[in-house]
């Protein structure tokens, strides 16, 4: 028994070594550090939006509508006389929530499907992978549109839809990682000492698939935010007067002549956010697998 505990401790030690190496390599990469900076800034803004924002994001004064950027309203005001800067700040909070929740949904479903397909193989594998193929036969935003059609337009349903359309990515990655990890001797050893499937999957297989999942999750947060903003822009996600970037664009597009700033800043916020997650994801991939880097 004592021996087994020691073994597990050693394994933990190995894992820590890997991650500190990864962080060392990540720190050397300037563009991915810039990505990390954007992501951290965004999280900071999301948490402290109520404290930082100078005005109410929802209540506006119609007498102030379409005011150009000034010292008081640094991003100007929109068609309802609301402060665009405060709305963009609150939008950060909503976007982070969208990214995390929808990727969380994709992760849970994708990892489960991938593990079942990869670990058990056979008929389960065939069925799961055919489902994945069918999902991949649709352009993502269209599949998301179809799901929102069934569920009805709302921010929560948009998150569910974006989560579901991103399931195939994770299912495929996890499946192929499981297939390669499964062949290792330590898995064979775990089977021979009588570990249950659940123990083998959670203690031996999943920790060793973590790197590719982490990279994909980071990159997918970016695309999820982009896709959800697209759905909200179409009126199928966040509903007015919520300060969500995509729906802010939809609100303001009719007033571009009078108040171009109310279109520029929300869109720019989406771009910077997605860029941050993309840079960080790219950097993580290079740091986790230095062989891929040129």
């Amino acid at each position, binding site marked *: 028994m004592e021996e087994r505990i020691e073994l597990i401790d050693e394994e933990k030690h190995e894992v820590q070594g890997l991650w500190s190496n990864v962080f060392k390599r990540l720190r050397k990469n300037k563009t991915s550090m810039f990505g990390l900076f954007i992501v951290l800034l965004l999280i900071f803004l999301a948490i402290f939006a109520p404290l930082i924002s100078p005005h109410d994001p929802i209540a506006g004064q119609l007498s102030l509508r379409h005011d150009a950027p000034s010292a008081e309203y640094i991003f100007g005001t929109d068609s309802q006389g609301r402060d665009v800067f405060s709305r963009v700040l609150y939008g950060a909070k909503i976007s982070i929530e969208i990214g995390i929740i929808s990727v969380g949904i994709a992760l849970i479903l994708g990892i489960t499907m991938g593990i079942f397909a990869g670990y058990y193989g056979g008929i389960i594998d065939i069925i799961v992978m*055919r*489902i994945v*193929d*069918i999902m991949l*036969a*649709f*352009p*993502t*935003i*269209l599949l998301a*549109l*179809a799901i*929102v*059609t*069934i569920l009805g337009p709302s921010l929560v349903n948009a998150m569910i839809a974006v989560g579901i359309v991103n399931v195939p990515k994770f299912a495929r990655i996890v499946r192929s990682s499981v297939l390669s990890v499964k062949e290792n001797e330590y898995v064979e050893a775990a089977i021979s000492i009588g570990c249950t499937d659940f123990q083998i999957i959670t203690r031996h297989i999943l920790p060793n698939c973590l790197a590719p999942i982490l990279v994909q999750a980071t990159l997918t947060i*970016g695309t999820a935010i*982009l896709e959800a*903003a*697209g759905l909200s*822009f*179409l*009126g*199928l996600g966040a509903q007015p007067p919520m300060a969500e970037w*995509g729906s802010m*664009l939809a609100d303001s*597009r009719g007033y*571009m*002549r009078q108040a*171009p700033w109310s*279109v*520029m800043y*929300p*869109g*720019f916020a*989406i*771009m*910077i956010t*997605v*860029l941050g997650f*993309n*840079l960080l994801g790219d950097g993580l991939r290079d740091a986790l697998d230095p062989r891929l880097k*040129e």
Partner: protein
Amino acid sequence: MGNAIVKRILLVIPVLIGVSILAFSILHFIPGDPARVILGERATAEAVFELQEKLGLNKPLYVQYLSFMRNLVKGDLGKSIITNESVTIELFTAFATTLELSFLSMIIAVVVGIGAGTLAAVKQYSIFDNVSMVGALAGVSVPIFWLGLLMIWLFSLKLGWLPASGRLSVSFDIPRITNLILIDTLIAGDFAAFKDALQHLIMPSIALATIPMAIIARMTRSSMLEVMRQDYIRTARAKGLSENVVIFKHAIKNAFLPIITVIGLQIGLLLGGAVLTETVFSLPGLGRKMYLSIMARDYPMVQGGILVIAFFFVFVNLIVDIAYMYIDPRIKVE
């Protein structure tokens, strides 16, 4: 190779059946009675019953699916609930616009993407390399509906150079033969109309091309860098060939395979992006049609649109895979 191609084609069948089941069941996934949902709360019981009969909702599920499939094989996707026109005809009219838009976008994305990617690889670490790769990163992250709005603001509202929306100015009356307006205007011999139609497409196609362009540029660069390190490139240089011949005759050809895969993958992205682009520029394409039908709860149209888009997407992927096998015979179907 013949075997491999047949195997690849057979793999399409289960996917198509799955897609048809999904499209069929959309109507049945809606919570509540679809006929009631379509007609609204205030509809009379007779009206609901009548629509149920019309849509065949009173029959057993498998009977409904079989008749759905029978009509599908005949190319009959039913009638729109809103306009009462044939779904097949309406979808194909809209599809023509999407096809023109996607085709033009793809040309822009491929030409600019491969050009910039090659130049960036050849002049690695130069200013051009850095600028174009930062641009490519921004390109993958940009919301295309926002980019579209910015272009409308600058080129239509501020400068007045290009039309902000629509497919053709109302002053032109062109007989619709193929529904591809660029081709119809040429058939009619009306060059003013052709120019007008092209002007309407410029901004939407650039907006739609952004993401594929950025992805193709990044892929081309890394693929070219990989190839430029190979021994045969060193040999080509050593035997005194000019740098242009080395790049265009030896390097690009071999760098092409991963680029083609990426281009194939972008076609789905274009079809999806078309929903947003067509909405921003009010283009009467398939994406906008789908969006409007979803909002209007025109379910036969939604079902038909899903089928048309998914079938087209599966077909394009099939072509890409087969093209791939011709280019690199080492590739086998898994």
